[in-house]
């Protein structure tokens, strides 16, 4: 059972209610971990996040996550960052030039604009930049974004989106993945992407499929 359990990091900088609702609808079991001791023994870890880069980083540091996450990733644990969660995985952000990121994904997060409305708030289309086993070609699917900063695209970027310039909508490095949009807020399309991502990361549904006769 615990093999496929998802750990949701609760560090008071994420909107957990909608994420929990999405996981419930997908029938994916999870634990909400307010401290590192509560991390499930195995299974994917989800780092949500809204707000300011530096205050989120501080909050993760105070709770012991900042040190722990790179260790878990080094052990091969899958990690999914969503929105600010993705940005925290990068090397750093223009939002907090003096505070480094976790560095689990190379690259710097830069402010959007000029010439476009910031924050980038609403539904934008994403396109495939490089194939990934967990993520199908989105073929222009609409996903919901709310952010003022974005990760610069790299060779490994999975999905791209545009707001004034192209940026990384989904980024992957090994078992570390980051979503800039909110899949839990992106209607049925978002739920499907969340499902396939977490399944690829090893999450298993509550109700196992009926065994073959």
């Amino acid at each position, binding site marked *: 059972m615990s093999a496929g359990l998802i750990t949701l990091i609760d560090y008071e900088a994420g*909107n957990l*209610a909608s994420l929990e609702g999405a996981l419930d609808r997908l029938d994916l079991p999870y634990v909400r971990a307010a401290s590192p001791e509560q991390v499930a023994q195995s299974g994917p870890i989800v780092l949500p996040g809204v707000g300011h880069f530096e205050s989120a980083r501080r909050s993760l540091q105070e709770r012991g996550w900042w040190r722990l996450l790179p260790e878990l990733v080094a052990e091969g644990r899958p990690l999914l960052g969503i929105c600010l969660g993705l940005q925290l995985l990068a090397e750093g952000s223009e939002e907090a030039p003096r505070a480094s990121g976790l560095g689990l994904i190379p690259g710097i997060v830069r402010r959007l604009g000029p010439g476009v*409305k910031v*924050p980038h708030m609403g*539904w*934008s289309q994403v396109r495939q930049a490089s194939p990934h086993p967990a993520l199908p070609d989105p073929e222009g699917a609409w996903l919901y974004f*709310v952010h003022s900063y974005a990760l610069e695209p790299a060779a490994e970027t999975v999905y791209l989106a545009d*707001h004034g310039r192209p940026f990384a909508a989904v980024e992957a490095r090994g078992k570390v993945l980051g979503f800039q949009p909110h899949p839990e807020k992106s209607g049925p399309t978002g739920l499907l992407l969340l499902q396939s991502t977490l399944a690829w990361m090893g999450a298993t549904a509550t109700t196992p499929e009926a065994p073959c006769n």
Partner: protein
Amino acid sequence: MPAKRIIPCLDVKKGRVVKGVQFKELRDLGSPVELARRYDLEGADELVFLDIAASLENRGTREAWVRDVARELSIPFTVGGGVSSVEDARSLLRSGADKVAVNTAAALRPDLVCELANAFGRQCVVAAVDVKRDADLGWRVYLKGGTEPTERSAIDWLWELNDLGAGEILLTSMDRDGTGDGFDLPLLDLASELPIPLIASGGAGLEIHFLEALEHGADAVLAATLFHEGILPIPRLKTYLAQNDISIRI
């Protein structure tokens, strides 16, 4: 550019969605969760809930339905009504709202906008503004559900809200609200100069009114009765807008 957004607005009183704020008889339309589910399926891009009788006593009720809506909904939603402190906003965001809307409290104490933006990021802060055409000011800002005139010019106040840290403006034309005669387009022309997204509200009656508002710079359009009564189903509206070259999520 993100897609233009279609946003149904739901008035909530004591945990129920109601219709007919200006009438004594409020009609019960259902629970927030029921309506949320319906609009999610219909293809709404976002929802706005306005708690029209917000008070200290019903805070617990509100947190409960906000939590239920957050768990059920697969699109973002804003909650407003009586938000006057960082703590009010925190309770809504902790319960699962994506954004909070502030109106009267922000006009009475503009620093509130700044405090909210600092605490939660400006993307969480929707500044709702009710305005009426005025011989002296162009458009005048009204408070307390449109009952109390201020000395503020609407356009000046919108720019001030932007400077204070609002992430989005929800602009209601009281002249047009409930008329079905179309949005106040000159108002949208001016307000869409702002560097933050603009939600147009007040006056929607026909499909073409939505098209006009979006062509006059609105990033999103909001309506209530038209959607609640099923007069204009959202899928039909979206198809119409897409056929008229508006970028829309279908």
